[in-house]
């Protein structure tokens, strides 16, 4: 019978490769992929240093490739040689990698540590688990910073200041992609927050967002790297500009530039780990062991000592303390702090996964006109 033959063949195959495949040892090397800069440093100090102190046999290597992680992972996968063990990506990239089958689907409760009070990981992370492959790490936000010396006596308190050329003349910087900008444009055009994506789904809604952006188009410098806006603000090139809140924290608190934070309508986004698909067993075991350690309640809270991004676990929030070097209280600088999070906007991952290709083409065409 066909089945018997196939099963026999499969059994023979298992026997043949068996002895090498069953070894459940942990690999001694781990390659971590992240964004470089202050963020990667915070990860190194909060996760890797204590982990290596516990496991001295481990060598951790950083690869600063998160910016192009999706493309590189796909290329590695096609070549059949995945050299990364754990990759730090934003949530939308995690969804893409999961869709493409390049990231491993995981059981969050099995893989990740429960909170100290016994709450399961999936409850502790809550709705931040936006994909079956995604292990949330931080909540960051894209928000606006402004030059305190260029706005006179009326510092902006409302995100629509970006579109107000009379009150706040000068250049502004926005990211060179439709995400976030289209939402802000609609909000400032009077669309209620809850309806933004419904409106943006229609051609008229998109035209409306572009029309709003048209009003400031000539005064916008479009950025593509997170460091651009802080630099432009420090140089006085722009009066107001969007970037990640951690970058603004560093400009304001660490470099003492005359820059103020506008938390209004900040857009929350997530960053976290994925485990690439197709790791060998010993490397997978090591990656799992590390990620369990690196995303426990204390480690996530520790990371906030070095950078002003909010820990993704609910149980970590009360543990956030002082900045390791500056000695200032970090809680008021967290995007999730109640004072800062009075008016927030939640980025809709599913929606953008669908509309990204289409809207990006339209956005680029609009920019080029």
């Amino acid at each position, binding site marked *: *019978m*066909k*089945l018997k033959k*196939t*099963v026999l063949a*499969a059994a023979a195959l298992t026997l043949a490769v068996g002895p090498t495949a069953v070894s459940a040892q942990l690999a001694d090397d781990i390659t971590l992929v992240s964004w470089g800069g202050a963020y990667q440093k915070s990860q190194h100090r909060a996760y890797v240093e204590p982990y290596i102190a516990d496991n001295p046999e481990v060598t951790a290597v950083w690869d600063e490739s998160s*910016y*192009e992680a*999706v*493309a590189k992972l*796909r290329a590695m996968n096609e070549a059949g040689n995945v050299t990364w063990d754990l990759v730090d990506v934003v949530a939308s990239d995690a969804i*893409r990698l*999961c*869709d*493409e*089958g390049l990231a491993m*689907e995981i059981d969050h409760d099995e893989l990740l540590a429960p909170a100290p009070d016994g709450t399961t990981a999936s409850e502790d992370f809550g709705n931040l688990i936006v994909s079956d492959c995604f292990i949330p790490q931080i909540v960051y936000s894209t928000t606006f910073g402004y030059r305190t010396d260029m706005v006179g006596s009326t510092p902006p308190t409302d995100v629509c200041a970006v579109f107000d050329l009379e009150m706040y003349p000068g*250049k502004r910087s926005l990211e*060179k992609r439709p995400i976030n900008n289209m939402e802000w444009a609609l909000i400032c055009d009077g669309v209620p927050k809850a309806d933004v994506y419904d409106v943006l789904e229609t051609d008229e809604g998109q035209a409306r967002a572009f029309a709003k952006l048209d009003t400031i188009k000539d005064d916008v*410098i*479009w950025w*593509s790297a997170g460091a651009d806006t802080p630099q432009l603000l420090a*140089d*006085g*090139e722009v009066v107001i500009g969007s970037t990640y809140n951690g970058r603004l924290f560093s400009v304001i608190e660490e470099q003492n530039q005359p820059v103020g934070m506008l938390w209004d309508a900040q857009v929350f986004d997530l960053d976290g780990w994925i485990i690439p698909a197709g790791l060998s067993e010993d490397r997978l075991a090591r990656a799992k062991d590390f990620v369990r350690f690196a995303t426990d309640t204390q480690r996530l809270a520790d990371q906030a000592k070095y950078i002003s991004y909010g820990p993704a676990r609910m149980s970590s929030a009360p543990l956030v303390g002082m900045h390791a070097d500056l000695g200032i209280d970090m809680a008021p600088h967290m995007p999730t702090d109640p004072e800062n999070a009075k008016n927030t906007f939640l980025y809709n991952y*599913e*929606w953008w*996964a*669908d*509309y*990204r*290709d*289409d809207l*990006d*083409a*339209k956005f*680029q*065409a*609009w*920019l*080029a006109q």
Partner: protein
Amino acid sequence: MTATDSPVLTADGTPLKASLRRALRREKARAFLLVSPLLLFVLMTFIAPIADMLFRSVENGIVHDTIPRTVQALRNWDPGESEVPGDDVFEAFYTDMVFAVERKSHTRLGSRLNYERTGLASLFRKSGRRVGTFDTKDYADAFNMLDPAWNDPATWDMLAESEAASLPHTASAYATWLGVVLADGGDPLEEEPWDVLYAALYSDLMQAPAGGFENPLLDDAQSAATGFEPVSLREQFGAIDEDWLDPQVWRTIQTYAARYTPGYFLNSVDLKLTADGVQYRDEGDRIYILLFGRTLYMSLVITISCILLGYPVAFLLANLPLRTANILMILVLLPFWTSLLVRTSSWKVLLQQQGVINDILVALRIVDDASRLVLINNQTGTIIAMTHILLPFMILPLYSVMKTIPPAYVRAAKSLGATDWTAFWRVYFPNSVPGIGAGSVLVFILAIGYYITPELVGGTRGVFISNRIAYHISSSLNWGLAAALGTILLFAVLILYWTYDKIVGIDNVKLGG
């Protein structure tokens, strides 16, 4: 036999011709062995990637590989006749989806099709989560109630072999199932048959003529199946999302079912392949033709700027005393050795509105403080920065050609009464044209593929087509489109090169000597 007829022999008695041929062959083999490392290197790092790119720009196997039964069933669907495809398509799609979900390839197909129709990515993702919990479970329960043999994979295996002709769907679904279970490391003899097999069996039984089975198990099953409550897979899919009942979704799948598609190339020139044929993209979506045009235009401007700036420098280099020329040469080469990113970033510091150049102009009261010049984040920025970066590629070939122009020519012209200008224009310049040609070809071809500098200083109107290629490679993952854009760029360069050869002649290009 006369001596003239017999072949000339060598000392060892072999004919001279053969001996010579052998010697030549050995020589050739040796020469080939010498170049073979380079040949292999070029093949692997240059020819193979280009061939791969050409292939990717038309390759579209993913639809056929992921949902083969659906593709097959859709061939018989005429969108003109029925609004939504018939049940056979939904049955095939259900079978395909169950296995695709198991292989985790359905979301990949979703993101591929999302390039052509917005919304399909989430439709496939969402359906993947629900397709395992369809009401087809009722079939499984009913068949198992009828005869416990149906719960035994051995029964299916036997039928898949002996009744393959009368149970085509079942046999094909079973074969895929077996593959999936084995690939997962499971034991098919222990695995409970999945709902999808029962659904296929039900469909086969209902389509077969009544009483057409000799096998008593099947005969019983067939007579019992007529009494089952039918499960409409169309409704099941419609319940997940009503988009599955939208004929446009199915027409998109049908249009992109082929293994090879011109779709990426059409997208690259602002067209699109739809079920109704090739159409223009909406006004607001057209971007590639504009970018191709801009890339060519700006590369041309950069090349001309390089000629204008580089020619006098190369002239000085070639005609100054050696000591001074060497110092000048270092000034040309130093920036050439500096990192591209560093040079681009320095241009940012210089050119921005609060930058060095604007500050000086304001301090000198040439420009009003309120109306500082916009020199960056536009085409001006790209042209300035790229001209600077590519200048050495113009100066060096120009210099090496000018070095070979004998000074006696100009002296002779002057002694015959030519003015300085005439001597330069009629004698020196024509001799330096091959250098201009070489420099222009180099600069133009380098400029056309530039991407990092336009990205950093180009703003919105100073970006090139390569920036979009980079975007599709690293962000949108639309590698097919990136490959098509790259292919077009490659052929544009080849055509320009060919035109150049026809008009100027490539023999006139000299990189030196």
